[in-house]
């Protein structure tokens, strides 16, 4: 889909006094994409959204929408619509008035507006709810009204600021699917802000992982999960086990590292770092909990890890084993529940096995806070 209007950030800097909220961001968002900014709170993702919507002028650099520089153009003149974290529905207006507020501004007649509201209410599966007040709707329904209100303005780009964070888990998962469907149907560009990697992974075409004002990686969800650029991206997106060490030997795209506590291990160098690491560099190796298997006792080599089991838990779909790990952090192993019997290993040493392609090596760096 390339029909939509793209958004480009060029060398974007945003400062508040001495504080740098966004540092040299360069992002190309394709028209019609569902693009997410993913990062912990305070990483600058909302600041970027405000710069795109026009509530904030960048200190340096450009925001381009459809190739057009947006500098000096106010939020009421940009082809964007923003969905606020708290939705910001107008509490004193009826649902249909809320939805068609943008039409009211352009001077459409009440009859026209009512008609458009009914169409949009049908689309969000809330027919005949137009005469209620927002306070009379449930959280999920309000959510959909906010989407309809934004879509009614027929924006080229829809901006969403963690709109699902106030909903309960079930509804949130349901709304993910719904948002994705709405986006496919209307075909416009969605820019989605979230700290929830599950939301970002399930909905997005592309994701930008942000940390302290810096964009660490921009890629599709699968790449970010399997082939992270940085230690932060590896540790923030999904669960991951870290092994710190020094690079001992480099063999093409693989490397042997001497880890602090698990001996010498082999890993695949992440794509972005290939050719950039050298022998002797501090590095971090990441292995996902689900990438481990239990090896037979006594097995050893450069893709085996032996550790003492602290505790175990049964989670239903997986069986989790927590062993002593590097730097005080436990190693988590998740074995899928396929009906096999699980032995209790607590207090014993077990040997874990992994495949080299599942161990990703990145330069040593800052980890995401737990």
């Amino acid at each position: 889909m390339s029909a939509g209007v793209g958004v480009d950030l060029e060398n974007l800097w945003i400062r508040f006094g001495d504080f740098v909220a966004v540092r040299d961001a360069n992002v190309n968002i394709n028209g019609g994409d569902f693009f997410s900014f993913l990062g912990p709170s305070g990483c600058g993702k909302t600041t970027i959204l405000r710069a795109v919507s026009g509530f904030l002028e960048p200190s340096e650099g450009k925001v381009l929408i459809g190739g057009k520089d947006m500098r000096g153009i106010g939020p009421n003149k940009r082809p964007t619509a923003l969905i606020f974290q708290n939705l910001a529905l107008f509490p004193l207006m009826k649902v249909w008035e809320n939805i068609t507020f943008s039409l009211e501004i352009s001077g459409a007649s009440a009859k026209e507006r009512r008609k458009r509201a009914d169409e949009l209410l049908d689309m969000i599966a809330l027919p005949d709810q137009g005469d209620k007040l927002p306070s009379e709707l449930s959280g999920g329904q309000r959510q959909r009204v906010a989407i309809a209100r934004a879509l009614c303005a027929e924006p080229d780009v829809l901006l969403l600021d963690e709109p699902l964070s106030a909903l309960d888990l079930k509804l949130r998962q349901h709304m993910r699917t719904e948002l994705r469907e709405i986006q496919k149907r209307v075909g416009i560009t969605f820019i989605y802000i979230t700290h929830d990697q599950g939301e970002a992974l399930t909905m997005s075409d592309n994701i930008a992982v942000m940390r302290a004002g810096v964009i660490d990686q921009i890629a599709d969800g699968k790449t970010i999960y399997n082939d992270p650029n940085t230690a932060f991206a590896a540790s923030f997106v999904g669960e991951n086990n870290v092994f710190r060490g020094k690079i001992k030997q480099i063999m093409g795209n693989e490397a042997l590292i001497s880890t602090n506590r698990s001996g010498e291990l082999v890993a695949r160098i992440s794509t972005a770092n290939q050719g950039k690491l050298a022998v002797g560099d501090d590095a971090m190796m990441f292995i996902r909990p689900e990438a481990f298997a239990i090896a037979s006792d006594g097995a050893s080599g450069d893709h085996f890890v032996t550790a003492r089991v602290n505790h175990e838990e049964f989670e239903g779909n997986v069986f989790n084993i927590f062993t002593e790990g590097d730097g005080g952090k436990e190693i988590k192993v998740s074995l899928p529940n396929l009906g096999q019997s699980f032995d209790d290993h607590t207090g014993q040493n077990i040997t874990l096995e992994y495949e080299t392609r599942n161990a990703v090596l990145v330069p040593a760096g800052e980890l995401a806070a737990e």
Partner: protein
Amino acid sequence: MRFWFRRVNWPRNKGPTMPGFLKEFFNRNGIGMGAAILGLVLFWTIGLIILPQLSMLDFSFRPNLPPPEIGGPKDVYTLENYKYLIYGPEGGSQSYNAVDLRVFFRTLLAAVCVTVFNLILCYPIAYYLGQSKGNHIRIFAIMLIIPYWINEILRAFALRIIFGETGVLNTLFVGLGIWDTPFDFIRNDIALYAGLGYAYILLMIFPMYNVIESLDKNQIEAARDLGAPWWRIHWRVVIPYAKPGISSGCTMVFMLSAGALAAPQILGGPSSLWFTQLIYQQFNDNNDWPQGAAYAIVLLVTCILFVLAMMRLFKVNMGDIGK
């Protein structure tokens, strides 16, 4: 008052036949504290407001008699005090009491003007105070409050100094050559309107400020994002939200302006009486308490009816006024 009812959580007491809200009130505050609070509130409303007003009402229906005849055969209920306002003295030259009625309606109209003028002046201030953050807001608020430490009469005379024939403004404008002769602010009632407006600025600002402060900034941004120009944001989002504060402020300013005495006395032009001055004259100069009471009751009732009519017109609930 709401918050200090809630704060104290005394042991529960049960009253068997009390209505729900009273029961809850005593449950929250305990019998002792509850009774004390309730007693004070009742004393305040009944003892200090309702009973004196009732006695005024009683006065207004009685003839003005010398003290020995009070309670005598001539002391009967009569409407003559009210008739006087409408028809004037018996055997007078006019069929209507044109002088007093004109003063009465002029007072109401002027109070409406003061209210509207104050609203227009105070809404931007209240909006600014309510929506911006920082210490300068506190300084602003203090600057608004401090003039009220000075007593009303002094403030009124201070305005006379500004607006008088040889006052600050006239000296300035004549000195600059903008006007040839001094402008008579007093005779043209400008000093009076300014004085009344100034006296009630706080009562207009604070209720509005209170409401606007609680308005979610995102609402304003959402409206802007959807393309609304600033005036429409105010018209459709801020003003509807601030309506309880606006009506509360307007009610207070209107009632107090209509009932003001010091400002009209000091700042009013010689030809423009305020209705309260007539009431004062009846009580004080003519020593005719029943006539004064009747005038005061007419003013009070008219003001209340006017406010109720306005509330209905603008669809404001009584509960909103208390916000």
